[in-house]
């Protein structure tokens, strides 16, 4: 029964690609996609298609690097490029990840405030629950809970269907590239590329693949995991754009956040769509709030040379769990400080994530070509070319973002 054993083998490796991919559809991502749909309708869906392909290419590489070397990205950067570049990359990653975790907790607070729950209640509860899950649970338990949480994303697909979109226009927007004139459209495009691929996702997928003890002989299934994860990430993003396009854009309305989008959906697509959108936002925030600190904890442990594994008891991996708890607590506290300038913090975080993405991708690309490190799993010509194109896409986006920011 080869087919059945294939499915069993696939089920055993699924996880890194799906979780890393879906963590990129966090509240910041959903906000970006909602704005893209509300402001430009279906027209810029092709950008999402492109960035999903880039996501697939680099997550595949991340998982392959973990499998080939048995090390996470941060550790590998130290081994290959020395302690100084590793320390700089780590510092930037930690800063960006703390900021990102703030954004996730802000998302938890905002989505539950739609249901009338104060953020001073929801955020501490969420932080403690996530902290307990990771410090108390085994690898398997943590993975099961996170994968279960990821099913919440189906809410976006339903919300998109309820919005009764114009499928013809959506299909055209997906495959026919066009760019409306003006600075705002360019900003929307670059923000979309920047939010689909994220530094924490790259750090996470590789370390997590190592922690899951994935092996080279299963590489075919591991690639399926990555592709499924990336496609799910892209499809969910597309449905968010479609939901916003079919309702808000059709009515000529603009929004500032995903929370606005959830509330604004109600008159057009009904209370169910609005509720689903809000629930999706909560699930997305919780998933990313678990994964981003985890990526941080893996990276800190690897760079400093300590063991990091979800199966280790807390007292055997104090650096790993300590940094996890610290990121979680810091972010929850920052979000709850009254009068803290949250919008600038989140804005700077997104900028830092975009800037950091490029050097990380270059490090990855260089390691991927190095047969000394990667052995038989080093890049082939096809992967080389694909990654270069993706790198160029991200570089162009970051550069455009920089120019726009400087031109102010």
């Amino acid at each position, binding site marked *: 029964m080869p087919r059945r054993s294939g499915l069993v083998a696939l089920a055993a490796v699924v996880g890194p690609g799906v979780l890393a991919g879906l963590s990129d559809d966090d509240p910041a991502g959903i906000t970006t996609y909602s704005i893209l749909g509300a402001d430009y309708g279906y027209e810029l869906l092709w950008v999402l298609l492109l960035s999903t392909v880039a996501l697939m290419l680099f997550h595949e590489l991340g998982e392959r690097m973990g499998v080939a070397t*048995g090390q996470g990205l941060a550790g590998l950067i130290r081994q290959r490029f020395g302690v100084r570049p590793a320390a700089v990359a780590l510092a930037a990653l930690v800063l960006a990840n703390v900021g990102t975790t703030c954004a996730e907790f802000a998302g938890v607070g905002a989505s539950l405030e739609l249901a009338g729950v104060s953020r001073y209640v929801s955020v501490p509860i969420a932080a403690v629950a996530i902290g307990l899950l990771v410090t108390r*649970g*085994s690898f398997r338990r943590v993975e099961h809970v996170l994968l279960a949480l990821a099913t919440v994303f189906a809410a976006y697909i339903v919300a998109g269907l309820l919005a009764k979109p114009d499928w013809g226009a959506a299909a055209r927007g997906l495959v026919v590239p066009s760019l409306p004139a003006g600075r705002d459209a360019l900003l929307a495009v670059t923000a979309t590329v920047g939010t689909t691929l994220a530094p924490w996702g790259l750090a996470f997928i590789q370390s997590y693949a190592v922690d899951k003890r994935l092996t080279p002989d299963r590489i075919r299934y591991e690639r399926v995991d990555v592709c499924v994860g990336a496609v799910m990430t892209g499809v969910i993003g597309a449905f968010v754009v479609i939901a916003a396009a079919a309702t808000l854009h059709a009515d000529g309305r603009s929004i500032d956040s995903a929370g606005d989008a959830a509330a604004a959906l109600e008159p057009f697509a009904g209370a169910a769509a609005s509720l689903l959108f809000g629930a999706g936002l909560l699930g997305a925030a919780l998933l990313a709030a678990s994964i981003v600190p985890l990526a941080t904890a893996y990276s800190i442990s690897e760079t400093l*040379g300590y063991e990091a594994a979800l199966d280790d008891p807390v007292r055997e991996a104090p650096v790993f769990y300590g940094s996890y708890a610290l990121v979680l607590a810091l972010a929850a506290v920052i979000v709850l400080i009254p009068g803290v300038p949250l919008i600038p913090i989140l804005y700077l975080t997104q900028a830092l994530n975009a800037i950091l993405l490029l050097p990380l991708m270059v490090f990855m690309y260089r390691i991927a070509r190095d047969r*000394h490190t990667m052995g038989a799993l080093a890049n082939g010509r096809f992967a080389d070319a694909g990654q270069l194109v993706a790198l160029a896409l991200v570089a162009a986006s970051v550069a455009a973002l920089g120019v726009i920011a400087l031109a102010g």
Partner: protein
Amino acid sequence: MLALSDYLRQPVLDARGGRVGRLRDLAVRLDEREPAVVALMVDGGRLVGWERVAAFERSEVTLAGDEPPSEAEEGLLWLVRDVLDSQVVDVEGKRLARVGDVELARDGRSLRVVAVDVGLSAVVLRLGPRWLARRLSRDALAWDEIHLASGRGHELQLSSPAAAVHRLGPEELAQLVGRLPVGPGADVLRTVPRPHAAGALGASRRAVAAGLVRELGTSDAPAVLAHMPVDDTAAVLRAMGEPEREELLGRLGPEEGGRVRRLLRYRSGTAGAVMTPDVRTARPDEPLGAVRERLARDPPALDGLLSVVVVDPDGRPTGVLPATAVLAGRGSPVAVPAVNASAPLDEVIERFATYDVLCVPVVDEQGRLAGAVAVDDLLDVLLAERLPGGPRYDVMSVRRRAPT
């Protein structure tokens, strides 16, 4: 003691004071416990043999004579490329660590590698702030207590008889291969003596062991599995996919393969899945002295199996003779009822709780002795349940085979 990082990027001068370049790397040959430096690398990848070094100081490295730099040599370990900032397994402390600095010591004219520093202070020192580094702890591991996890270091150590990996017993090997990626882990098992490799597999987590067996492949795995107790082999194969399992069973040969296959018939969670078929038996009327002599000639793999199962002429167990009775030469069998091989494990636990025995006989559908669950086997199962995600690399099922 000299720290490698203090010497890197220092100028290398020739005999007339002319600059050859900066020091980039040091090479050692792994043929001694504390390997000696045999070459330097200067800018542009040029090599200089150690015999040309007149002075090796923190301010500069001075060379004697001016022969042209020598060509690259195979089989050398480069301390910057292959060791510094790479992962090592601390085989004594059983942990994974990353090298922050390499410590060298002068030994007459030569320079030897004696330790690696995996502490935080070494990292901080290389990044700059000395005041902070002084407050942090050093954490030095002797060179002969580490295994290099980086590709080249790992290969060179495997091929060097002086390396730590060749002195490890099965338990330490299990710790080591559990911390390495599966490919290098399998390399280690291919290199060490087969019984050690088998012991290491038996002492590893089932999922880890299954991954290693898969990586060993049909060419190398059967030779290692042949040294494992048959119930351990079955436990590892149970954790693998069906096609791979069948292929391996085919390679084990008809006799061994058949014995494993019989055990594999029982689902996990049943007495049959935990039992050992290799059990010592006695006839009801046999004198205890004769039983003791037989045990001494052919001792069982587990302490729990020193208890002898008494079997009637039809092959049905009637009781268990405690090891103390066999040793003392007096005493009678405990009439513990056998458990059916397909019965849940709870029944076995209940027998242990009721009758103070160290092993419980297991029977097949016809009521004939199929094997026994030794207390050691049961403990494995219970410990694994008691410690969910507990110790990452459990050593609880290590079996010391009696010397033959």
